[in-house]
């Protein structure tokens, strides 16, 4: 089937000339690959903005007392950092970038089911992202509620909460449309012969993710609207003075925002599931278990939101129930970890940057996951609730999980997306700096959190000095690693050596077409005859 690797049969999607030229040819393109890159560039820009905010917070926390910013500025900083990171980067991140780019290719389709809707999602996303940034500068000052927008404070704060809420609502709408598009794509667009259980595992994780996006996001949408109504029309659903109930807001908020954690992590799990077999040259271990565990995580993940509210006032039986389910949801995650390790076992391991990121994903995700159980237990939760321990935990999950998953995917698929190789040595060095900086930055926060350092405080007692100091040093190391990694990738996109169609000897469909892929991905829709991840050591790509 070498005929599948057609060079110059069609122009690549990067060179293809449509109705418009230049920039317009990108921002009005309905090609899923171009839309993926639009998302990628938008996300990288906003990521850097939020990283700067994070770094400024760490500089403030270098020493006790006020260093570079006022308490109010600090409140705005962590709110903006959170809103941008959560709603613009980690929730859409993997599915909008790699999902858009590779879902159609992995299932043997020419595009997603609704290409124009896909472009609309990006436009809505861009609009929401601009609103989020606008909320920082326009009107009465940057929002200072934290990304969780807890009432009653979010109903009373004088800052720009309404714009920030609207931004989150708009971004949620974009997320719903992407999810809807992916579900229909997976149902309707799979190549002939690609049954559900012949589908690669990244599409499986996207499928589970898409259902969460579709079914959970509307709840936060209406909740944010209710807070807006509370601020503008004095409707008072959450205002005790008007008979409302603030705890009700917390329930409604976490009914979405806990499943949203799985919107972040599931595609990352999907990405590393693609990477382990390729760099071990071995079929993935426990294909069915991994596929089903994605659905299990998505399903059970709906019913654990209460563990964010153990100290907010809930009946004992409700807390017991939520704690129990929190432990249950750890099971499918653990199943995945065991399967990844078993995939590597006795494989022909090739320690390239994507695998380095994937392995560090497991390491960081395990720390994040196990500390999550500390938070999920009723007794220990009371001790560490709202401390730096929580901050460390979710950064290990979100940044260590989703972030490193994203970097892993970036290094895995970069040759396919741009048709060029990056500097592998430099990528390894950047990974080393990133990984070291990450642990220096967040691990001390577990310790000071245990000792009682509250989260979201701009000042601290002298006994937390050492932990904060190490953490801030770590922030600088981490940022160095990020800059080096991005530099390497940007430079390589222009000047890297030309990449072959299949540089990692991968077996899934994206490696059977040229790099970068032609406009319509496949000249002829492939017919699938077997399971994915079948490695043939002497002649890869042959069925």
């Amino acid at each position: 089937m070498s005929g599948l690797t057609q060079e110059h049969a069609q122009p690549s999607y990067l060179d293809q000339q449509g109705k418009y030229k230049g920039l317009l040819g990108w921002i009005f393109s309905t090609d899923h690959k171009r839309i993926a890159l639009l998302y990628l560039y938008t996300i990288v820009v906003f990521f850097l903005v939020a990283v700067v905010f994070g770094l400024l917070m760490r500089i403030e926390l270098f020493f006790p007392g006020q260093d570079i910013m006022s308490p109010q500025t600090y409140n705005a900083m962590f709110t903006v950092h959170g809103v941008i990171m959560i709603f613009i980067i980690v929730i859409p991140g993997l599915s909008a970038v790699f999902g858009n780019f590779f879902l159609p290719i992995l299932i043997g389709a020419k595009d997603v089911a609704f290409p124009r809707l896909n472009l609309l999602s990006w436009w809505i996303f861009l609009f929401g992202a601009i609103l989020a940034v606008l909320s920082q500068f326009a009107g009465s000052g940057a929002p200072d509620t934290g990304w969780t927008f807890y009432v009653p404070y979010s109903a009373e704060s004088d800052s720009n909460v309404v714009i920030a809420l609207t931004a989150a609502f708009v971004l949620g709408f974009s997320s719903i449309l992407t999810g809807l598009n992916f579900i229909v794509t997976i149902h309707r667009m799979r190549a002939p012969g690609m049954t559900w259980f012949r589908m690669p595992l990244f599409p499986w994780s996207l499928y589970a993710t898409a259902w969460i996006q579709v079914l959970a996001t509307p709840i936060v949408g209406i909740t944010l609207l209710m807070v807006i109504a509370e601020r503008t029309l004095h409707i008072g659903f959450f205002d005790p003075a008007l008979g409302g109930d603030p705890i009700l807001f917390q329930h409604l908020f976490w009914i979405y925002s806990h499943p949203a954690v799985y919107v972040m992590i599931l595609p990352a799990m999907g990405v590393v599931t693609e990477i382990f077999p390729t760099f071990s040259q071995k079929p993935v271990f426990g294909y069915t278990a991994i596929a089903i565990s994605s659905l299990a995580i998505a399903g059970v993940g709906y019913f654990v939101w209460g563990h964010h509210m153990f100290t907010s006032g809930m009946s004992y039986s409700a807390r017991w129930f939520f704690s129990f389910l929190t432990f249950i949801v750890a099971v499918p995650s653990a199943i995945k970890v065991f399967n990844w390790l078993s995939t590597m076992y006795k494989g022909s391991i090739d320690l390239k940057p994507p695998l380095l990121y994937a392995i560090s994903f497991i390491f960081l995700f395990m720390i994040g996951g196990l500390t999550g159980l500390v938070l999920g237990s009723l007794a220990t939760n009371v001790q560490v609730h709202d401390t730096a321990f929580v901050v460390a935990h979710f950064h290990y999950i979100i940044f260590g999980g989703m972030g490193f998953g994203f970097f892993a995917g970036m290094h895995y698929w970069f040759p396919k997306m741009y048709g060029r190789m990056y500097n592998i040595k430099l990528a390894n060095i950047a990974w080393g700096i990133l990984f070291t900086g990450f642990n220096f930055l967040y691990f001390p926060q577990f310790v000071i959190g245990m000792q009682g350092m509250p989260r979201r405080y701009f000042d601290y007692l002298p006994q937390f000095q050492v932990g904060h100091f190490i953490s801030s040093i770590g922030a600088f190391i981490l940022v160095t690693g990020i800059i080096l990694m991005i530099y390497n990738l940007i430079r390589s996109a222009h000047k890297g050596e030309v990449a072959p169609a299949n540089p990692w000897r991968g077996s899934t469909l994206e490696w059977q077409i040229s790099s970068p892929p032609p406009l319509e991905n496949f000249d002829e829709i492939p017919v699938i005859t077997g399971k994915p991840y079948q490695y043939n050591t002497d002649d890869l790509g042959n069925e």
Partner: protein
Amino acid sequence: MENTISHIVHRDDEASKMGMWIFIFTELLLFGGLFLVYAVFRAKYSEDFHIAAMELNAFVGTANTVILLISSMTVAMAITAIQKGDKGLSIKLLAVTLLLATFFMINKYFEWSGKIHHGLYPGSEVMLGLNRGQLLFFGLYYATTGLHALHVFIGMAILAVMLFRIKSGKITQDNFVHLENGGLYWHLVDLIWIFLFPLLYLIT
């Protein structure tokens, strides 16, 4: 070249309908949040809800329910008409649907303005003087019917576009999935009202 052509005319009605159904689920969940809030406060302030619900005019509510139900029927008939190739009838039935939707909105307008005239609107002196449960009931009344009215407007816009697309020949006997989806959306608007009507007007 054949591939390029087949790509342009790629059409999958099943996919379009599936997409619409999923979108409808999200709309139901959006309203679901409000229904949840209603359930919580109804349980907490059942006495106040009872008194406040007496204020609403069940006759206007019933009239609007009947109007929406008939409009759902006419939109379904419009789809059948286009399936049978009767373009003119389909256009007429859609026009009737839009007319009924307008009646609904006129009723709603008089209902709301009557309340606002009596000083019953969120944030007003009268509202703040009410019992907390009654205040929340009217808050919910405005939030749910307001959001529903917004959906009526969106539905009307969609159906108007469909009407012009039938006129210009874009929707035809063998390509009517967009009209079908528009009809599905209109049924959703109807369905939500069918839940709002008893919750606000009938259960007292």
